[in-house]
């Protein structure tokens, strides 16, 4: 038996290369991209709709609707007037740089300022795949319970912006939204948590500002 070494052993080298290609392409067209991660039903689509409603006169938003199957989120984006692309992974639990590359090829990038890439609803797998986006945010909602940060600490320790959504429901369901925020600040002291209620226009202005959506 003997050992041999590889010239480049990085298993994600191809994904990183593709992610860099996406980043360059977005930058060339002057598009800033935001990877939106979070569980199914946390309100990722509703937050993008709410942001669009507030900035549509000044900012041209686009969205990639990443889902395992179906066009539900894509249809919502279209109805809201957001330039959208439907990206079904069919079986995969996350988006990767190749799928995003394919989406970019099918979007009018010259007509966009900001692109939301809505990842598949999942708090584990998307964290390991670079897409070439400028920012990564994680969305959770109070309806998922108080322990979301504690149950998925790694993705939160690496995200500098966390949205805690549906805070308008917290009293009715007996969940204290301060709990996930405190947990998050404990493992990521320099991160920022924003309380929102996407369908009640709460916290949306703060989120728009934190994501620099209005900046040219």
């Amino acid at each position: 038996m003997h050992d041999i070494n590889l010239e480049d052993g990085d298993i994600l080298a191809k994904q990183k290369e593709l992610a860099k290609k996406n980043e360059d392409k977005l930058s060339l067209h002057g598009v800033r991209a935001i990877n939106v991660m979070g569980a199914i039903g946390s309100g990722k689509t509703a937050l993008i709709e709410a942001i669009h409603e507030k900035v549509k006169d000044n900012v041209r938003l686009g969205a990639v609707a990443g889902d395992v199957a179906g066009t539900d989120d894509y249809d919502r984006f279209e109805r809201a007037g957001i330039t959208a692309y439907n990206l079904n992974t069919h079986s995969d639990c996350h988006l990767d740089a190749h799928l995003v590359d394919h989406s970019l090829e099918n979007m009018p990038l010259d007509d966009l300022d900001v692109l939301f890439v809505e990842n598949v609803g999942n708090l584990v797998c998307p964290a390991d795949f670079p897409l070439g986006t400028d920012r990564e945010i994680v969305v959770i909602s109070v309806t998922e319970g108080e322990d979301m940060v504690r149950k998925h600490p790694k993705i939160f320790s690496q995200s500098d912006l966390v949205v805690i959504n549906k805070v308008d429901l917290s009293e009715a369901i007996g969940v204290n939204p301060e709990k996930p925020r405190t947990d998050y600040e404990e493992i990521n002291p320099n991160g920022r948590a924003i309380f929102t209620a996407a369908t009640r226009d709460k916290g949306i202005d703060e989120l728009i500002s934190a994501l620099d959506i209005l900046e040219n």
Partner: protein
Amino acid sequence: MHEYSIARELIDTLTDQVDEDRLTRTKKIHLELGELRVISKEALSQAFKIVTEDTILNGAELEFEEASLVARCQECGFEGEVNYDDDLSLHFSVPVLSCPDCGSSVDIVRGNELSVKSLTVEDSDSDD
């Protein structure tokens, strides 16, 4: 279960850089896995086993070496291990991604690794 995707990327990495003869004789694949990676070693080993069945890599086993987190402070120049949060009664302790000296934000120097360190290959006459 993104370990199947990782297993496929691993196979591509190997087939791109190592010839078929050596891959057929590969017994162990030594991987470096950074602490910040959200990957199950058991699930990746199982996925690799299933995906490589009936291929030249059939029977090769994955061995893992963990790379601990090393961070560099963006303000004070500290470089080294960070503090860990053991208070949350989690299943594992969570690295606190801020400078243990001054509390500022840090860059990750080590901890994101996911790479092939080396392969253990059975000897053959063609190696000479």
